[in-house]
């Protein structure tokens, strides 16, 4: 007899993520795609892909919850929305049941969420309107440097003498990068400087007070940022198994809770 599954859809500004879990909160299937311009279409494709991976059909979906910027655009699938802050907190407190500071670096925004040992949020901060310190900042810089974004991590690791960027404005940072290129600075040193800048912007939002958990696409694809964050904060940084899926998994956990608790 088919078992019910619970689905979380995280419609981010950059990527759409879907997670399928069972009643024991085990991740059965997942998918990540570019959100593009048709959130519903992308969500449908991700949903089908993750259900296939889980080996179940739509009929087995007991409940679904959406989150992320496009959360209301896929309400036809779910009928219920939660904020990404709530979903990240839900997932991270499950994997790390202790007092933690969650740092999420997403495509469009950053979040710093403080949780107590019971998983309750005591505070959260989102970056202000500017894109500094977000995935969008790195995407913009990869274009300026003409480097594929997936190669940035390996380049940063080659750095011998990091270039520090002073500005927190993306446009000014781009000018600074060009200036450093003119002065003959090496690309790996500039890329490491960009990573440093991303972490610095996040740490300016809020001081971590507990053990740190990092999530989001930027850390999923650039593990070197995690190592740099450990060095900069002097604290160990923990990652869930799928950092980019944390929001979607949290949404799936909400779906399970709603079904269980009514």
């Amino acid at each position: 007899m088919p078992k019910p599954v619970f689905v979380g859809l995280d419609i981010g500004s950059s990527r759409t993520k879907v997670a399928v879990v069972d009643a024991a909160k085990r991740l059965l299937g997942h998918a990540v795609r570019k959100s593009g311009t048709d959130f519903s279409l992308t969500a449908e494709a991700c949903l089908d892909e993750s259900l296939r991976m889980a080996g179940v059909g739509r009929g087995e979906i007991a409940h679904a919850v959406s989150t992320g910027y496009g959360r209301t655009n896929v309400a036809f699938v779910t009928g219920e929305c939660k904020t990404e802050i709530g979903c990240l907190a839900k997932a991270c407190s499950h994997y790390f049941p202790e007092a933690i500071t969650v740092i999420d670096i997403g495509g469009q925004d950053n979040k710093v969420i403080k949780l107590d040992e019971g998983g309750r949020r005591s505070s959260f901060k989102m970056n202000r309107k500017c894109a500094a310190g977000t995935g969008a900042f790195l995407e913009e810089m990869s274009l300026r440097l003409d480097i594929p974004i997936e190669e940035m991590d390996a380049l940063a690791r080659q750095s011998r003498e990091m270039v520090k960027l002073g500005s927190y404005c993306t446009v000014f940072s781009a000018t600074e990068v060009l200036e450093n290129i003119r002065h003959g600075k090496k690309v790996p040193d500039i890329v490491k400087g960009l990573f440093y800048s991303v972490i610095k912007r996040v740490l300016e939002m809020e001081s971590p007070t507990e053990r740190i958990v990092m999530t989001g696409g930027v850390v999923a694809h650039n593990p070197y940022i995690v190592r740099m964050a450990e060095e900069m904060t002097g604290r160990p940084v923990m990652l869930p198994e799928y950092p980019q899926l944390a929001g979607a998994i949290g949404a799936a956990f909400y779906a399970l809770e709603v079904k269980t608790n009514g």
Partner: protein
Amino acid sequence: MAEEKKIVRKKIQAADRMNKIMADYFYELNDAAVTGKRKVAWCTSVGPAELLRAMGFVVHFPENHSAMLGATRMSTDLIPTANAIGYSPDICSYLTADIGAYIKGITPLAKAYPGIQSVPKPDVLVYNTNQCRDVQDWLAWYSKELGVPSIGVTSPKNINEVTDAHIDDVARQIEALVPTLEEISGSKLDMDRLRETVSLSRECTELWKQVLETAKAAPAPLTFFDGTIHMGPAVVLRGTREAIDYYKLLLSELTQRIRDGVGAVDGETVRIYWEGMPVWGRLRQHSELFANLKATVLASTYCSSWIFPAFDGRDPIRSMAKAYLELFIVRSDRYKEKYIGEMLEKFRIDGIIYHDAKTCPYNSNSRYGLPQRVEAETGVPSLVISGDLNDLRCVSDEQTKTNVEAFIEQITEGE
């Protein structure tokens, strides 16, 4: 995409009466300016309006006009005009919207009140820098443009306790305005009339306080968003009988709501305090955002800033000075923290939202660690949202929505 069911706050019936007295006020101003029958003074919002009214001036408030530009969402298109003549997008967007509107010959009054073509031309401009320095710069531009004098009070700032020395200083400055105002108005200051005007302002302010304090009830019968509209008479008609009569009517309706157990928002579960300026161009959206989360924004520093317990007709000038100095915006952070703490307790608040208005540092109390200190002292969680009072280029609706939804989630899930 699913249709989101929109819950709206309940309409206040007295609003029709308010609209009538506000219309009368604007037509009276227009008539004075067009016919020249009475002198027109422009006055900053907590400037010496009582003195001006007692001396026979009809009084226009540029901040009120600019709030109208914001609420009608005209301001964002007008601000760049002022930017282009050297008034930075980083300074007060009341100032830049209003000057931009003047340069372009636009006013929301023309649309709202048929027959009015423009803001009333002033005979004198009067400021009090208790709000900020920008109000003085604002009137200085009009002074040069229109060739009318700009006079006023330069207020002490960052005051912890208001002392006699502070009051002496401001009272002397108010007295020093009198000869110029007498010359422009063509008549001597009648102290009896000033006493009466100050007494009327006191009565208005007492009633306005009672109106706002009806929100102590649960469910609250009015919201911050109602308050920003219904404070109109307290801002532009204080010192008049019309404002007093209006607030008696409004108070009676809200008291009835309390008796009937009727809240401004159905199913109120979370009670929020708003610190800072409203986002004028987003009043309706913000009202709906909170109402849909069953949260009532029911008290604020902003609406409470038009409560002046110091007004005393027996000692009009010194009591005006004291009232203008006791204003929240004039005070030290130590005073502000105590004040906010008391408000959170009085209104049984679950969470406080600070609006960090890009162009209004004086009304943005989230920049020097105050939210963290208040939260540590009271245990009431806080959220800072970025935005602006009038410049919608500084507003991110999606960020505001996510922040507010997550904050209400945090409060409800933590219960």
